[in-house]
């Protein structure tokens, strides 16, 4: 017996919403999905009229859907924003170069200007070269830190007011779980904000309009709207710690579909004791980027890479930062600890 759409009751339902379990027809689903993002944007006050907003576009499903929905909502509700696409080339062969082609196609489909920044031109290192030096474990740290700075640098070059990324509910929930597992209290209370703080010069606020959209619904939306996106996993991702949190979250979702939002709700409502040491935001003494230590993480990582000591940024070596700043050579014992180990993955 065909099920009717629970919203319009006229048309036949073609899908079951993963978020609420209701059966909806295609148009009602599109409308509900877009409307929810609109409500998120409006209630959190993410954008102001007349702003230039850069959409972090990787060519994957999240950023493609984000670009599409932002364009639709900008026209439908007259946000008055001027949108453009910003893409980062990490230099991963077989993955990033293919997805960049997708972004270039998106540029033509949505008629939005596009800018690509690459690790090669910003730092002088591609991810492939980094992985060759670091090994298969811990390389997500490099990619993530560098990418965030690359996005900011690209945005500064384009002189935009805000950046928005396609982080969805699953990503935020995974981050919460990861931060609990790693004991990172500081990140735990920051990671659920929908928008980063906008104080301080040189810090362009980043926001996540898709924060409450399930990954499954994003896939459904992209599929039914026949959007053009690139759907392969990064080749280095299987060894990441995040994979554990992801697998756990997926299992949780299969037991209770609302778990993803429940995790986000938990992290929004938890509170930290006073007196717990929290990092204070300052600036990096070398490059001027925001940092809570004397040197920002990407300067430390770069230094490690350039000196052939890739483990400099991984693990706790705060005491060595001073030495690095002063350009002193490190003692032999310290160097030994930081050199790459031949095979450190438990595969």
């Amino acid at each position, binding site marked *: 017996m065909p099920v009717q759409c629970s919203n319009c009751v006229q048309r036949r339902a073609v899908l079951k919403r993963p978020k609420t379990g209701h059966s909806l027809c295609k*148009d009602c689903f599109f409308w509900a999905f877009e409307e929810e993002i609109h409500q998120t944007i409006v*209630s959190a006050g993410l954008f102001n009229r007349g702003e230039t907003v850069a959409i972090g576009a990787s060519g994957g499903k999240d950023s493609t859907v984000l670009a599409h929905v932002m364009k639709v909502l900008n026209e439908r509700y007259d946000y008055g924003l001027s949108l453009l696409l910003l893409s980062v080339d990490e230099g991963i062969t077989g993955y990033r170069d293919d997805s960049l082609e997708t972004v270039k196609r998106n540029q033509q489909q949505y008629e939005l200007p596009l800018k690509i920044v690459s690790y090669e031109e910003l730092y002088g290192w591609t991810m492939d070269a980094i992985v060759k030096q670091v090994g298969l474990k811990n390389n997500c740290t490099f990619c993530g830190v560098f990418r965030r700075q690359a996005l900011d640098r690209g945005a500064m070059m384009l002189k935009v007011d805000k950046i928005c990324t396609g982080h969805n509910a699953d990503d935020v929930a995974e981050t919460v779980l990861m931060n609990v597992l790693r004991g990172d*209290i500081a990140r735990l209370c920051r990671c659920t904000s929908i928008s980063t703080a906008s104080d301080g010069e040189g810090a362009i606020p980043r926001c996540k309009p898709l924060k409450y959209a399930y990954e499954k619904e994003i896939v459904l939306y992209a599929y039914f709207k026949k959007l053009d996106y690139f759907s392969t996993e990064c080749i280095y991702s299987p060894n990441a710690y995040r994979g554990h949190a992801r697998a756990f979250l997926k299992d949780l979702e299969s037991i209770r579909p609302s*778990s993803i939002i429940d995790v986000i709700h938990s992290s929004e409502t938890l509170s930290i*004791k006073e007196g717990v040491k929290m990092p204070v935001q300052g600036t990096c003494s070398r490059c001027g980027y925001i940092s809570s230590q004397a040197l920002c993480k990407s300067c430390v990582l770069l230094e490690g890479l350039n000196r052939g000591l890739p483990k400099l940024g991984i693990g706790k070596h705060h005491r060595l930062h001073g030495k690095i700043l002063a350009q002193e050579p490190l003692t032999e014992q310290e160097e030994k600890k930081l050199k790459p180990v031949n095979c450190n993955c438990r595969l």
Partner: protein
Amino acid sequence: MCQVEEDYNGLESELNNLCCMKCKEGTAVLIIRVNDAFCRSCFKEYFIHKFRAMLGKNRVIFPQEKVLLAVSGGTASCSMLSQVQEGLSREAPKKLRFVPGIIYIDDGGACGRSAEERQRSNALLKSIFTETGFTYFIVSLEQVFSLPTSVLVPGTSDPDPSNPSYKQAVDQYIKEKQTLTEENVASAVAQLNIEDSAYSPEHKLALERLFSSMKTLTAKEDMLQTLRQHLILHIARENGYSKVMMGDSCSRLAVKLLSNIALGRGAALASDTGFSDPRYGDVVIVRPMRDYSSKEIAFYSRMFNVPSVFISGLDTKTHDKASIQRLTESFVTNLQFDFPSTVSTIYRTSEKLHTVMPPQSQTAEPASKCLLCLCTLDTKVDKASAFHATLVSEQLSQIKLQDPSLDAPAQSAEQCCTEGQGCGPGGCCSSNRLPSHQDLKTLLCYSCRLTIKDMVATNTLPPYIITEAEKRQKRWEILLHNLNISFIKKKKCCHLLTLSKPE
């Protein structure tokens, strides 16, 4: 984890030659944590010391206070029992100074165990309890159906200015003790033991109906936990116990923290997993075993023959994905194998959290606490929050109802809904005074709402919950009547959004 310095290989073969790290003399018989080797006597000392240090550091148990030990029969709570016994039998200055009682809740009715099995385990536990000489209560979960509604009302925690501080109380006690004889103290302990394991068949049936109306194992476990807490609280209040000790170990608490995050209990994380849980007001729950890993407890009970009884629970022998709690347990255990610092990291995270207390917690009305778990309600709809997003989604996916604020019962699934969508939060049908999902939801915190959502029929809840719910609902309605009804009602239902659908 993922640290440069961590290096876990080559230890197994060296155990035979390892010396105890503490006394450096005896041969090590076990390794706890990553590579801490202990000999037998040092381990015993370490174990006992940790218990006393935990109580001493936190200074919440005053001398001569009555403390109820919640024992489930498992190794952790039985180890706790043996530690208390050990502590009470020491010489005068180092003696633990409280008056213990034991409580065991027989939840076989909810877990589907047969009457003979229940009697068997009760008898085994009874023999363990009589050995200790403490007062004990063996209560069956069916008693929950005869609880009074006062269980759901947090008591006041007596901010009496004449109450001495911890140090003063201890000094006072030591002075008095010198004039008391040993017999006087001992006679206070030998009181009436209650074995209330008898239950009426109606209650048994009611309990079975309650648990079969829960659709998921997650909801069942949650409900069982809540009912158990209520029962323990009631017994403690009735018999003048001001503290309850639970035997949750570090590993258990790490799993509990993670599964509570998955269940949406972020606001109450600190009370659920911290050392003391003050949410009930007059009775404080403490967790003195929270520093012990499961491995340490297992080794101790094995090496020093702590008697325990294995009693199967709701999730025994279920597969990994049967419930959220079970899934979290297997996740943490597996992760701990690859990254041995997982449990202790999660434990440290829990120490840095605290529960947000509302500004006037002393005078707050009971209505601002959750009906079931008695923690502060976390369902204030902030404009940009996950909860708000959930409400928006619910609204957008359903046909707009005429007056969604009308109360509707959930008497039985067959009577509801002609649209075939199921009787969800939307509500329908005529009105009757049994609490509907809609009624109850406004009185519950976020995660208790999820538990109730998984229930088919809310009238299977024990009478004390239903009565208290009606009382609070009536109070709320009177409040509505006094203020402007229609304006407040709109706000109450959070239907602030005016949306127009495209045709």
